[in-house]
């Protein structure tokens, strides 16, 4: 007689079937695209790919992408910490509504995110004339790219921190305050050590999205080579010009960023299982 199977265990053939289907699906949807990027980038050899990346327009795009992330991520960290402190450590009416508002950018199409800034800062927009008179440029310039990126990454850090800080309650903070610690001291010495891993997790996801955002940035950028092209936009331009090696070479760079993000994220989840949560 065969070994008795535990009631919660699936028969071997079911296991094999499920795994085969899952593997095939993930291969088609996730793995092949990733492989394809590197294969296409190296189609004409390593040198050609490197050359595409070393092109001055590509380097300008890398620089702009880094600048954008360097502004967006710290901004979202400060905002996320502020929002989480207000929402998670205090009680006030309308709290669930505020959390929904903070999450709002996730349910707005990136294209709409770009559009709203065009409507506010564009030539035809609310502030268009005033900006023109004062010789300032937001749309088709770096500030617009940063703003659009901030919008689409807005909830990342806050939504990581709010549930984490809510879970931890307020008694450690109350203990610190009752022993005479100031609010700022309590925040730095008691609260942040408890949420640093969740914060890092949020920063990781926020950074990946900030560097990779396409739709919103595409609307506000104007695609000016060497000036307002981020890496994803540069990929698009090269691709549309049928410079596939160039497009995939820059894309491969972004893939590496994604892989590093996933490796760090997985390491974080293994080391600090508490940070893992679903969605986004």
């Amino acid at each position, binding site marked *: 007689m065969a070994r008795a199977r535990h*009631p*919660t265990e*699936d028969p071997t053939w079911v*296991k094999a079937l499920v795994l085969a*289907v*899952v593997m095939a*699906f*993930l291969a*088609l*949807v*996730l*793995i*092949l*695209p990733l492989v*394809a*990027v590197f294969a296409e980038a190296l189609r004409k050899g390593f040198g050609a790919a490197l050359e595409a990346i070393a092109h001055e327009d590509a380097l300008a795009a890398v620089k702009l992408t880094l600048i954008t992330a360097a502004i967006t991520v710290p901004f979202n960290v400060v905002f996320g910490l*502020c*929002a989480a*402190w*207000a*929402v998670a450590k205090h009680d*006030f009416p309308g709290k669930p509504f*505020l959390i929904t508002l*903070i999450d*709002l950018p996730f*349910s707005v*199409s*990136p*294209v*709409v995110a770009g*559009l*709203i*800034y*065009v*409507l*506010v800062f564009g030539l*035809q927009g609310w502030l268009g004339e005033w900006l023109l008179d004062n010789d300032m440029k937001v749309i088709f310039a770096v500030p617009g790219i940063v703003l659009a990126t901030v919008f689409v990454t807005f909830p990342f850090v806050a939504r990581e921190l709010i549930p984490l800080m809510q879970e931890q309650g307020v008694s450690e903070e*109350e203990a610190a305050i009752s022993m005479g610690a*100031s609010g700022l001291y*309590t*925040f730095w010495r008691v609260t942040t050590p408890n949420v640093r891993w969740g914060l890092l997790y949020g920063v990781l996801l926020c950074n990946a999205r900030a*560097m*990779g*955002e*396409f*739709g919103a940035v*595409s609307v506000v950028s104007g695609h000016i080579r060497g000036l307002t092209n981020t890496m*994803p936009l540069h990929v*698009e331009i090269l*691709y549309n010009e049928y410079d596939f090696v160039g*497009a995939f070479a820059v*894309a491969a760079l*972004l*893939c590496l960023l*994604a892989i590093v993000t*996933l490796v760090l*994220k*997985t390491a974080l989840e293994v080391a600090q299982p508490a940070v893992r949560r*679903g*969605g986004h």
Partner: protein
Amino acid sequence: MTADSLAAQRPVAARRPLFRRRSAIPGFGLTLGVTLSVLSLIVLIPLSAVALKAAELSPSEFLAAAFSQRALAAYRLTFGAALVAAVVNGVFGVLTAWAMVRYEFPGKTILNALVDLPFALPTAVAGIALATLYAPNGWVGQFLTPLGIKAAYNPIGVTIALVFIGLPFVVRTIEPVMRDLSADVEEAAASLGAGRLATIWRVILPALGPAWLTGFAMAFARGVGEYGSVIFIAGNMPYKSEIAPLLIIIQLEQFQYAQAATIAVVMLVVSFLMLLVINAIQAYSRRFV
């Protein structure tokens, strides 16, 4: 009650600060103030610009812009493809989550990490990669062409891109619920005489229902707004393979700001409805907890 005890009940005015302390933990006013200001400046006020811009049109102009033949075709494609992609993810997402939670197999850690690839990979990169793979002469496309299937530059291509984008939403929403499903429940079902299939059908799937619906709705909502991964594989033919976000950009490039804003308003309304649905599902599912 004597006059004395009455007086004792009404205390001599305690020094009450101008702003009554709400909480022992400081910083509430400052942090809430910053939160609300930033939220308003970055999100709420700019978003209101869309509605105000669309409102510049007369009602008939608005309707014409919002529901032109071309716009209707774009909505049909956008919502249809997002729906089909969410259904596909609903099926394969559950299987993937099941494999990740219940089975041990080589490479599981890597595969599990890869499920989040769509969160980490820039959408434009995903777009050109999928287009290259599923084009008629691509790695995958070449096997489909002899079968008479065209998987790129048409609505099928749009759907493939949205499957990629939506997958982690379904898997990551279901996974924790699946993991928390205690073995006791299944053992109890088995001890009551239920077969494996009956246990899965009658006990496990109903318990996953709310999480599945939430993941489905999130994947759908994300798919509706998606742009970067879609445009490379869509073909972008008006009336045929043009998604609504692209139509916004096209209107914008023709300086039709109010028309662009009008389509954005339609999409925003649908997004908000989705948000309400997701919240309702989650509120409903909390009844079980």
